[in-house]
């Protein structure tokens, strides 16, 4: 019997060596790679996200957990025949135009990838046009935008307007976050969701796409 709880605990403890060892052991016991991803890795990362949102965990725990998941996925990926079947959804994420802060965006990316989302990270200083191009190229379920400066928050609204002008706004859910961003602001610019912290991103994205 596969001990998925042990894999979850290894991830929660940020022990990448143990996580990889347990995943390799599970494969030797003929566990399905997709099951290991879902019941071990993603389940562990969701718990990590909950602990972050509740205030129990901090950035270091997230980084170490994400590293454990990444190293485990490196072992599993060659054996996963249908990656799309196990992903919860596709997210395009970026820090908006004029802003080079990436820690918030990176945190959210780690959470979402660990929880089974496919994340396409556009990086920092991403223009509205680049977001539009990315939506056309990758057909994501969600567009996530981060800003840490009040001067760059208007780029979030500009991006939403650009998606509307391109006729593709209805294809995606738009979520926003970052230190100066508030629910008030998100509502005003017509975003579909606001993430107060990285840990909330998993539940928010799952809710928005119904998975």
């Amino acid at each position: 019997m596969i001990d998925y709880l042990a894999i979850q605990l290894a991830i929660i403890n940020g022990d990448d060596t143990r996580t990889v060892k347990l995943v390799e052991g599970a494969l030797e016991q003929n566990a399905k790679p997709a099951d290991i991803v879902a019941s071990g890795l993603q389940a562990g990362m969701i718990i990590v996200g909950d602990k972050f949102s509740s205030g129990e965990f901090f950035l270091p725990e997230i980084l170490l957990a994400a590293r454990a998941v990444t190293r485990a996925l490196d072992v599993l990926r060659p054996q996963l025949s249908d990656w799309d079947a196990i992903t919860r959804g596709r997210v395009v994420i970026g820090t908006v135009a004029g802003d080079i802060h990436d820690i918030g965006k990176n945190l959210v990316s780690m959470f979402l990838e660990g929880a089974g989302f496919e994340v396409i990270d556009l990086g920092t200083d991403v223009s509205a046009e680049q977001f539009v191009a990315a939506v056309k190229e990758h057909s994501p379920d969600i567009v996530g935008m981060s800003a840490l400066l009040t001067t760059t928050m208007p780029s979030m609204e500009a991006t939403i307007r650009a998606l509307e002008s391109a006729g593709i706004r209805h294809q995606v859910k738009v979520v926003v976050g970052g230190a100066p961003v508030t629910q008030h602001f998100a509502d005003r610019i017509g975003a579909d969701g606001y993430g107060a912290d990285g840990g909330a991103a998993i539940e928010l994205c799952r809710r928005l796409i119904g998975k």
Partner: protein
Amino acid sequence: MLMSHKARILATARKQAIDKLPFGARIDVWYNYHSSHGTLPEKYKDWNMVEILRDQGAGAQIRHMRIWKIEYDNLEVVIQEDPPYQITEWRTPVGSVRLKTVFRPEEGPWVAYEVDYPFKSREDYPVIEYIFENTRIVPDLSEYYRKEKMVGEDGMVMTGMDFYSPMQQIMRYWFGYERFFYELYDHLAQVERLYELQKEIAKKKLQILGKSPVEIPMLCGNWSDEIHTPVFAKYFVPWLREASDYLHSKGKLTQVHADGEMKRLIPFFLETGVDVAEAWTPVPMTSVTTGELRKAWGDKVTIWGGIPAVLFEPQYSDEEFDAYVINLFKEIAPGYNFIIGMGDNLPFDGRIERVGRVAELIDKYGSVPIEV
């Protein structure tokens, strides 16, 4: 009694009698943006920040990075400009590392931000150690004195230990947060060696500050509790206590720039010995109200801030703005140990007239003690 803005700010920090709430306002994001874009209000074209704030009835906060120069021995520093980027390369006998920063004052910021960090792998430890061991700190107060003269009694020139405490220098400037925490977990001894070397550099800065006319040196800041709480007790508290004790022995007070999410850091703060928490940013930009902070710290810490930056934006009505500020006065009544200010700046789309509105509301409701 008629007090200048500076006198009122200093008296509050020193727990002396004041007539009304002091107001030390910061507008450099707004000013840098609009002066670069040619969109300053017609009246304020060609005015500097102190003049604008004087016109609005507010005390001025003017930022100054440092009162020293950093020099190096036995290594070469090569700076390459590729606007808006700058690449700094330290070339030592044991290897080289590079830092890439971006500086866009036309968008508001007054300083450069790191975009790529010197530390990449374990091979860089001896290089960075060498750099720290060969760093010299040399006093340089000429620009500070110029700003002091410009501000006069209308506010404060805010300067101190650069942005970062010793461990924060490593976290933020040399490694970046992500690489830092991996290294702290994987190679603790080597990170702590760098921390010890940074403390020695920081002590040289403290000595210069101790002899300087700076009344309330800034020790560090830009904390956020999800990042800094795990390292705060072990690496921040002892250093801040040591620095505060030293500067107190020189007749000074100390402050930190407390503009981030502070909820889980609040319990540690009183152990630091720091006197002033500047740029305090409450709800809705963080999860803590000013009332909660006041209750946690009592009168032991002077709080400077209280009006979150977003309140100055047009998304909030004038009525909402007034209501927030008046409620702030109620939260801090009777009003001792509190300096009104922004958390932490006037945003580029903030309304400058709301700065004057704060001054008006202080005149109307902010006599100390405040009667609710």
